[in-house]
């Protein structure tokens, strides 16, 4: 339990300070940090249901993408502002490190499988983002059409009522 609290706290500290390095400003800094905590919190929460890490990565990165898109619409800023910082806790740094360790110990078989594992994690990250961005685009289009249709309908009704 204590380690969970530390992980969540530190994912906030890490994401927040990294956002400073990316020159994120004002309240966006705070929102980026919260997004980082939320992404890692979700990762820990899903652990008992989804034992496969790449699959969890997929869902967490989808969540981050939704979070970034919604905030981007509200604050009128590119989604990238939140997408890049909030992804940070999910970046497979430990997997990459393990790959290097195995290479150092000349355990090439382990090294190769760790490298592939790192790659699969990054791929799931990217797939999560892509899935959400595509769906989001379609939803926005549909909403736009509904809005347009309603406006036309109202205009017609106005014409009919003298």
């Amino acid at each position, binding site marked *: 339990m204590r380690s969970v609290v530390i992980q969540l706290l*530190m994912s906030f500290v*890490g994401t927040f300070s990294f*956002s400073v390095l*990316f*020159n994120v400003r004002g309240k966006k800094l705070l929102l980026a940090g919260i997004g980082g905590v939320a992404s890692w919190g979700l990762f820990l929460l899903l652990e008992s249901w989804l034992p496969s890490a790449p699959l969890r990565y997929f869902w967490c990165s989808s969540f981050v993408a939704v979070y970034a898109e919604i905030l981007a619409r509200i604050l009128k800023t590119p989604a990238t502002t939140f997408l890049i910082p909030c992804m940070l806790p999910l970046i497979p740094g430990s997997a*990459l490190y393990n790959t290097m360790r195995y290479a150092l110990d000349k355990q090439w078989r382990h090294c190769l499988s760790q490298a592939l594992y790192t790659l699969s994690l990054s791929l799931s990250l990217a797939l999560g983002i892509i899935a959400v961005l595509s769906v989001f685009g379609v939803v926005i289009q549909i909403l736009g059409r509904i809005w347009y249709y309603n406006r036309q309908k109202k205009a017609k009704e106005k014409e009919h009522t003298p």
Partner: protein
Amino acid sequence: MDFSRVLSCALDIGEQMLVSGAEIYRVEDCIRRICFAYGASHVDVFTITSSIVVTVQQPDGQRLTQTRRIESYKTNLDRVDLLNELSREICRRHMSYAEFLEKYQGILNKKPYPQWVETIGYAMAASGFTMFFGGTWRDGLVALVIGAVVKGVVWLVDAVNFNRVLSNLIAAFAMSILAILAGRCGLADKVDMLVMGSIMLVIPGAALTNSLRDMISGDTMAGLLRFSEACILALAIAAGYLLASACLGGAAV
């Protein structure tokens, strides 16, 4: 207004966005919109990580091409935000070239965080991720120092204009040496976590994710280029770490 000026102002915005970390799609879309807003009848944009090419058909039917070579990158999300805003404003209302230039220069001249804030950022990020990966609070304290030192190394390497591969190698080397020495002196408990947390500072994770994103959304060329760049940087980091542990006698701990 002269159309070649419109084109160069669109390219200026696109170039700066690409340098500051915007995705390929946004850069191309932005350039296209600005050109259309000033009355171009046809626009072709092609962007990869190191170059932008735009051909525009002017209202009178003449064609115009300009290219830009992109040399270096520096993630600056605030700048992406402001330039995006500026491009939207250009599309909404026609802006004179003088007015555009003034606003554009204003954005470029906007100061980033001062150096000491960035140093604290480096230190806190290294410390945060060290403890995030399971390091103890003592490791966190050592990571604070390592982060600050890495900032110094990065600043120095930037000042003498090293290429990115070499600068990543040097940064990874410096932080690994410090982490392993801290472990030897008994200052740090878990050297593994310390190295992991510090490495997060230079890991090209954002570039890797961005590249896969570019590839899947159709910009295969740019994505592949960015992907291989990220892989080379990751290899440089690994080389720096391996070099450091070899210098200190082979064993990592």
